[in-house]
């Protein structure tokens, strides 16, 4: 039952999509497009391989060749939406979350994807490399650069309150 297995991955797909699109609606659009593609070409899924990696690859491709062009750039960072979490957590945790979201939005696409896969979703390097369709060595150096860039953005953010 591929549909059930795909559905079980929806929360992780949504989280990954959120980390690369920032906007709830755009992220869900992306997941919807990816779900449709995945169900439409389920015969391309190779039994015994990781379904999550296959799905993340579909999301990545859907983002690059379809959804990215649709979103409005001015929606990229939507602080009012982030306010939804206020009250659940301490304001410090909330500030930290917003700082990370903002810094992520300033990363290059390439860096955001690798951070979304490895740091947000927690995929092993090998799987992340498979999703991005790049060699392990490229994944490692790209991830290191992406982390540097993100760390720098976060440090700048803290320096300017």
């Amino acid at each position, binding site marked *: 039952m591929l549909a059930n297995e795909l559905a079980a991955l929806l*929360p992780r797909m949504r989280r990954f999509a959120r980390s690369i699109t920032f906007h709830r609606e755009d992220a869900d659009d992306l997941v*919807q497009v990816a779900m449709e593609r995945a169900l439409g070409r389920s015969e391309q899924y190779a039994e015994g391989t990781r379904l999550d990696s296959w799905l993340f690859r579909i999301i990545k491709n859907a983002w690059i060749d379809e959804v990215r062009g649709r979103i409005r750039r001015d929606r990229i960072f939507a602080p009012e939406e982030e306010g939804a979490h206020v009250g659940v957590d301490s304001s410090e945790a909330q500030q930290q979350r917003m700082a990370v979201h903002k810094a992520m939005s300033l990363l290059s696409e390439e860096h955001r994807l690798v951070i979304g896969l490895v740091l947000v979703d927690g995929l092993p390097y090998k799987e992340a490399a498979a999703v991005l369709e790049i060699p392990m060595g490229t994944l490692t150096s790209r991830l290191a650069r992406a982390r540097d860039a993100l760390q720098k953005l976060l440090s700048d953010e803290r320096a300017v309150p």
Partner: protein
Amino acid sequence: MNYSDEILMAYADGELAEPQRSEVEAAVRADPALASIVDGHRALRRDVSAAFAGVLDEPVPARLQAPGTAKVLSFEAARSARARTQAAAPVTKRTWPKWAALAATVVVGVLAGGVWMDAGKGDSLVSADAGGRMTARGELAGALSQQLASEASPGSAVRIGVSFATRDGGYCRSFSVGARAGLACRDGEAWRVPVLTETAAAAGEYRQAASAPQAVLEAIDERIAGTTLDAAAERAARERGWKP
């Protein structure tokens, strides 16, 4: 010894294989500058992960749900709610049966010996000697030595279930890796694996297969002295290198 930032990053992410992992670990222990780099990588990972963790708890919009999948989705929601509760509370012995009831997995066999290969990854997590005794290796061995049950390790494929002191004064830890679950007990510098089970989990649900199969529960009951270690005791045991 100097290590590149990429090596230190991979170490922080639990991505190094032995023997390199142990070499870097020793260097990091000896050099506060290296330790600080590793801590930086882990802190960033934690912050980024935390910044998006809330999405997992949101209800999935109906438009994304394919027909006939509601049951699975509620299972997923229940699982993440459960995981949060467990992360917040000290792990006790009685949490295991709850996990077992939650996960929709079936034990299909207990592997009694022989070299067991992780078919999905193509690398071996345990080795077996001529007598069929299994020993953890690679990522599993590293995780057993380093990961805490009381702390999330998002970068690791290995989940630690519970840690406990045994009646003969040693330590054992239950674990799961994908659809496999088992018990590992410290023996000198190695982790012996007296029981390893494989569960039939749906593809793609590898992270959810965190139940403790009956065989593992029984192996725990056979060995445990008192209750499971709380977070502080577990950390202290790790600091001592899991020596009695």
